[in-house]
């Protein structure tokens, strides 16, 4: 196994997910997704995740709710059927239309907020450029939860530690394809080297736009989804509606790039307050 390289590698140009040789990741093409949730079950079966059973939510066919400690794949359902006047369409947009289904997952960012925030060094970047929480190190401090711009890691109620998708790190070490990508019946979830997937994504978006799907775009390049210092996502998407519809932030930001500037501002204030205190006390 090649030595693990610390830190992150160079980010890709705008419009292209980051170019990281050897990086493996997912392209989730929502236009092929039939909302069957095979990915959710395959992930739970491989990783032995217990059921959440949050009950019937009434949110269309999504009774999974959100990514969490025991849910590492989550299929979202958004109904955009009728227009203002209640008219239902008959001729539909090519591929997935009017009932938007998308299998959400950890984005395995090029610069991961959770990894940069983790005070114990539990979250590491593997040789496949995926981001993994090492369960033998994490002490459940919870800082990675607010640090993730996409709301992926969550603390488990049972073992108190943070959990998220590992891109099936144990399977990758044995050359096996991740469980969700293997199970997906319509190959909406495609696994592979991210530069190949990146080309496939841009070609797909181009052909979709040709066939009249104007809203088609890649979510996860420098411009949308992988912006603000994140440097692109290793698990990126082809969407046909604005990201907010799928509960994804349009231009997220890597929170930790504000740390050093935050320290400096505090130091500046400290000097001012210190001086104020000094002179205020000394003055007759």
């Amino acid at each position, binding site marked *: 196994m090649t030595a693990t390289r610390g830190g992150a590698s160079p980010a890709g140009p705008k419009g292209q997910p980051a170019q990281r040789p050897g990086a493996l990741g997912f392209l989730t093409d929502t236009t092929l997704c039939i909302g069957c949730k095979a990915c959710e079950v395959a992930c739970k079966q491989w990783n032995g995740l217990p059921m959440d059973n949050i009950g019937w*939510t009434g*949110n269309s066919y999504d009774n999974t*709710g*959100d990514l969490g400690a025991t849910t590492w794949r989550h299929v979202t359902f*958004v*109904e955009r*059927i009728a*227009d*203002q*006047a*209640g*008219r239902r369409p*008959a*001729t539909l947009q090519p591929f997935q239309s009017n009932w938007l289904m998308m299998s959400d997952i950890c984005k395995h960012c090029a610069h991961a*907020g959770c990894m*940069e925030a*983790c*005070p*114990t*060094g539990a979250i590491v970047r593997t040789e496949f450029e995926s981001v993994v929480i090492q369960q033998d*190190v*994490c*002490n*459940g*401090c*919870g800082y990675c*939860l607010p*640090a993730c711009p996409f*709301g*992926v890691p969550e*603390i*488990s109620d049972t073992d*108190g530690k943070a959990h998220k998708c590992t891109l099936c790190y144990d399977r990758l070490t044995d050359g096996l394809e991740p469980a969700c990508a293997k199970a997906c019946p319509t190959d909406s979830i495609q696994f592979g080297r991210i530069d190949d997937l990146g080309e496939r994504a841009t070609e797909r978006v181009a052909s979709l736009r040709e066939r009249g799907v104007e809203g088609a775009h890649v979510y996860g390049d420098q411009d949308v989804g992988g912006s*603000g210092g994140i440097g692109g996502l290793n698990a990126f998407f082809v969407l046909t509606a604005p990201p*907010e*519809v*799928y*509960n994804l*932030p*349009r*231009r997220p930001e890597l*929170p*930790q790039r504000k*740390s*050093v500037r*935050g*320290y400096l*501002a*505090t*130091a500046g*204030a*400290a000097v001012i*307050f*210190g001086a*104020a*205190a*000094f002179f*205020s*006390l*000394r003055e007759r």
Partner: protein
Amino acid sequence: MAWARRALAGAASGGPAGGPAGSVGEGLSGGYQRRWETRGEGRRGRGRSVADQSRTSYYGIAPIHKPPWKWLVITYFYLGGIAGGSYALASIAELTRVPAYGSITRAGRYISLAALAPTPLLLILDLGRPQRFHHMLRVFKLRSPMSVGTWTLTIFGGLCSLSALIQAAQDGVLGRRSGPARLLVTLPSRWVGLLGIVPAFFLAGYTGVLLAATAVPLWTKSYLLMGPLFLASALSNATAAIALALALARGTSHRTLARLERLDSVFLLAEAGLLLAARAHLGGVIARPLREGRVGGMHRFGVLGLGLGLPLALQLVSQRYNRSQMGGGGTSRLATALASLLVLGGGFLFRYVIVMAGRQSADDPQATFELTKGS
């Protein structure tokens, strides 16, 4: 899974885009027109549908996750601030070489150790796996305020204890002749104090940066102000704590108390300024938790009113009173104590409000979408 219940209760924001009941029209291109009469007993001829609940957000479900921090962390923020602030003030007071401020230094040293003592326990209890607390010192990660903060806490813990011990030795608390006392007395307390000022100030202010370096809109939108804001609040709390201690202790000179009070006013004004600036910079959508609801109320009356406004007023009154009395005493000591108590209470409330407002902000989809809508 609080959001699940809330999503169920249909508290999702954004009303349905109810169009008129099915209107007449012949086969239009791209869609076809159905003519039907809906007897319209229900609202607008259409019941509230699944689509209505996901027009402006994904059924009200939070796009990001809030931290699991509650009371333990809030208390740590509070006590850590006081410990750092009072140590720094003590050292500064020592630097002024004004003998009368010896009382400030002594009070500051003792208060900082007293405030710092419970913090490690608070942090360890808050962990999901408390027995792995030492993993915090496994790495030193500059870009993680919590990593830097933990190291600072460790280092400052040593220095703060040392200074307190030196102070205790000087005050004879440890007895005159005992071995350690004699050794400690020889140590240069001013230099140790000076050495401890940097970690002290950092400990007091880093918690603001820790919150700012997250994706929570309310914390991160005006990230440059969070550090200074927490520092100002910590210093004002520390000054209040020292003033309170000295006000209660006999024999403190009137002038020292007045000087401390004035310093506290300076810090309160700075804190108020920073807080209002931050709130203004957040913008209407992201600052909503500070305006509405229970936390909004506590922010307006508790933090701004009791924690800042009233103590400032009291301090102004007592300062003018002092000047007019030219040296009278007595009543101002009570006013100082009262003001200090209000500031200390306000300080805790401030951290409670900021943390709780942050959690609400994380749960509000509109806040995240506002923050990340980009150009």
